């Protein structure tokens, strides 16, 4: 009798422990990252740093289409160099803009729910009317691509032209403006898309992947001066 009572208590304890562990793993953060994987569209972009000439046509097109005021920008082309000796010099360029992370730190810290990941497209965007300009997202973004729009006084950043070009069925303004076709935009879940073909055919890298943000802005590294793969 005594033996079975002890067994019963042991069993109860094990059950409780198991239930609590199960509860912990089903955290809100885990739920958050699952939502985007169910949709048919997951937009991403590739920047070919070999093709980029640093002309800033993308920056100017973005400014015009998305009405970005002077002094701030949604996209930057970072220039490094010159490499080599005059007159045979070269530069390297890298696009700096929202990476549309799947586990976006900006979305996690937003206290009002203004920063969000669009479930249908995977785009990280801002509900302007909900943003109170607290700048938590600006501090949280490891890529430092967010800014306060001086006109709306809300957080602003690249949204793959969600409100402007994509609505009209067009590619983002920067992609259309690029003279050397260095930018490729498309759906990661469409196996036939130019984006997926490119990702499968060329080695790419993403910035700060070790932070676990799962960014969706891919870069094709400049071969000049690098190891050929």
């Amino acid at each position: 009798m005594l033996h079975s009572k002890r067994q019963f208590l042991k069993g109860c304890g094990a059950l409780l422990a198991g239930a609590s562990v199960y509860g912990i793993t089903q955290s809100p953060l885990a739920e958050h990252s699952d939502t985007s994987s169910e949709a048919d569209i997951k937009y991403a972009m590739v920047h070919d740093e070999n093709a980029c000439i640093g002309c800033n046509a993308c920056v100017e097109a973005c400014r015009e289409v998305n009405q970005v005021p002077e002094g701030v920008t949604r996209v930057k082309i970072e220039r490094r160099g010159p490499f080599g000796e005059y007159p045979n010099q070269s530069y390297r360029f890298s696009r700096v803009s929202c990476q549309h992370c799947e586990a976006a730190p900006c979305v996690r810290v937003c206290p009002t729910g203004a920063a969000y990941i669009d479930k249908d497209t995977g785009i990280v965007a801002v509900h302007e009317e909900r943003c109170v300009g607290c700048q938590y997202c600006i501090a949280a973004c490891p890529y430092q691509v967010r800014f306060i729009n001086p006109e709306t006084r809300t957080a602003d950043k690249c949204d793959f032209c969600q409100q402007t070009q994509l609505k009209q069925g067009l590619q983002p303004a920067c992609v259309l403006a690029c003279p050397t076709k260095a930018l490729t935009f498309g759906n990661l879940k469409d196996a036939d898309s130019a984006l997926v073909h490119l990702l499968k055919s060329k080695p790419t890298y993403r910035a700060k992947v070790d932070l676990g943000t799962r960014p969706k802005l891919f870069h094709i590294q400049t071969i000049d001066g690098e190891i050929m793969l």
Partner: protein
Amino acid sequence: MCHISRYISILLTFSAAALIYCTQPVISVAAEVTAITNTSASSDTCLKCHKRNGQMLGLHGNPGLAIVCQDCHGEKGNHPKKGASLNQFGIDSPLSVQQQAAVCLTCHDNETLADADWTHNVHAVRVGCAQCHQLHPESDPMLSLSRQQHSQLCVTCHKVNP
């Protein structure tokens, strides 16, 4: 009395000097003006024929620089006749891009040019200076480009056909 008039004259001299200094046009030329050896030459002979297309109106026409046609275009030689070896600039020039640039680089310094615009470096052996810059007119269009125009200028050459 004598002291006072002396003070006044010194004061006047200083103020006149300051006035002259202030009214001088402030021109920032990205060039180190090196001594031009061709002192005996003048542009008069050239301008007898080249009345319209020989005028130098822009920054290079600044009398302080005292640039004459021969400094860039070379000695006349037997010029109006065939086989003359005058330097021509621009896309139709028989000179190579590097030969054309060498003429400009006798005064201009490549590092100063790179500070003004990094694109000078990447075009050093590919595009002649005169393909973008214009020296003879009153103002060089390259000096008053807006950001958008600057980008579009790149696009005109670098456009990849779809």
